[in-house]
């Protein structure tokens, strides 16, 4: 046979028209949304099974840590909550034996360690930073949290809220980060502390935490309520 260039052009054009017709409204269809949500729930289970509580996220040399870490939120840094050490209290709720609120001084007196790990954003960018703080596991021992419970939830001063599975909360690299680049966590990065969890995507690292609660009912998450996968492990 000899190839027919006109047939090629004609066919190509009708294919182009087809892709335009299928358009983007499909994603907004309720049935499609339901199907995608079921896949997302399946992905939650797969990720929990893939999570190895003993596997550490890769760590890097101090020199690899970025000094001017990227600011990221849905509001500008000028609108970040300005919490004062004098007024701040960390509230505890749910399956915790001692729910007495904690002051900044008490928190900062906890035993701390440093990590140079990579923050991976759901959008695809990544950045290595140096964080210092207390392992959440240590804090849970101090407050008598029921570590056999399934979930940990966080509420934040900026209206943000997040949650994660207990296995990840107890991971040795999951810390209450009081410092970034060896300096007390600046206001825009979440003063007085943020949860730094290098085994999860960036949005699972809540800032300006004001309440921590332990529960068996899976709590919500700010971005999860907006369609992002809840587990979001990496």
């Amino acid at each position, binding site marked *: *046979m000899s190839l027919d260039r006109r047939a090629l052009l004609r*066919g190509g054009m009708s294919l182009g028209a087809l892709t335009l017709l299928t358009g983007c409204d*499909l*994603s907004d269809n309720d049935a499609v949304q339901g199907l*995608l949500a079921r896949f997302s729930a399946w992905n939650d289970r797969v990720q929990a099974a893939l999570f190895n509580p003993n*596997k550490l996220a890769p760590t890097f040399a101090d020199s690899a840590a970025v000094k001017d870490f990227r600011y990221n939120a849905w509001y500008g840094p000028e609108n970040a909550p300005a919490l004062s050490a004098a007024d701040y209290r960390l509230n505890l709720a749910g399956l915790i034996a001692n729910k007495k609120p904690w002051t900044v001084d008490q928190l900062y007196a906890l035993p701390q360690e440093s990590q140079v790990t990579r923050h991976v954003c759901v959008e695809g960018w*990544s950045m290595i930073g140096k964080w210092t703080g207390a392992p959440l596991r240590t804090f849970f021992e101090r407050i008598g949290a029921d570590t056999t419970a399934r979930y940990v939830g966080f509420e934040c001063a900026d209206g943000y809220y997040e949650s994660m599975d207990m296995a990840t909360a107890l991971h040795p690299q999951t810390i209450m980060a009081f410092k970034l680049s060896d300096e007390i966590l600046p206001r825009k990065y979440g003063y007085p502390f943020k949860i730094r969890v290098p085994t999860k995507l960036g949005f699972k690292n809540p800032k300006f935490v004001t309440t921590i609660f332990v529960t068996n009912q899976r709590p919500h998450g700010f971005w999860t309520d907006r*369609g992002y996968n809840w587990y979001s492990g*990496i």
Partner: protein
Amino acid sequence: MSDTTETDVVVVEAAELEVLEHAWPVRLTHWVMAASIIIMIGSGWRIYNASPIFPFSFPVPITLGGDVDVALTWHNDPGVASAIQWHFAAMWLLAVSYLLFVLWGALSGHFWRDFLPVGPASFLRDFIAAARFKLEHHLGEYNAVQKVFYWGALALVLLMLVSGVAIWKPVQSYPLELLFGGFQGARIVHFLGMAGICGFIVVHVALVVLVPKTFVAMVVGRVTGHAHGSSTEHRP
């Protein structure tokens, strides 16, 4: 001279018996792979736009992930959440259909029978012929360019699956990302693999448009006749 007559008859019969067949596992996995790859490319472009690695973005109307204004209004999200849901749903369809396609192709003999032998010499010969629009097409026979393209497409999908795992699970799969020069390297490889698959799709679909019977065969399973035109057409 009866010998000559016999031979002629055989040639004519052979010409009329051109058959292209696809077993049902090939057709089923082909179409599931096709659909999931289209979904992955469309949603992948939307995800790419959230944090482009090259100095360009994809026009939103050709990406998959719902109406951006709706997402911004209701969810304060630039339509990336839906794109990621599509991407991480279709990845299962692609992985499973690809695995079944490869298993069936290897175990049934389809790959060894139809995609081999192939080498640089035959590829070059057929490529030059194709570029000059002089390549002969016969139903049921794969030329060297096709064979190389099919092997290439299979390799590219494997590359996408592996680099995809490195991006999806950079901690749990570590040090897999080092194969690609790190996490950001894996993103670049994943992008280039996508570009290669897009190139394959353009050529693949263009050839199907030129020989529509191959499309029919991939749907119903079997066609006879010639690659082009009616079955009474004479072969040179």
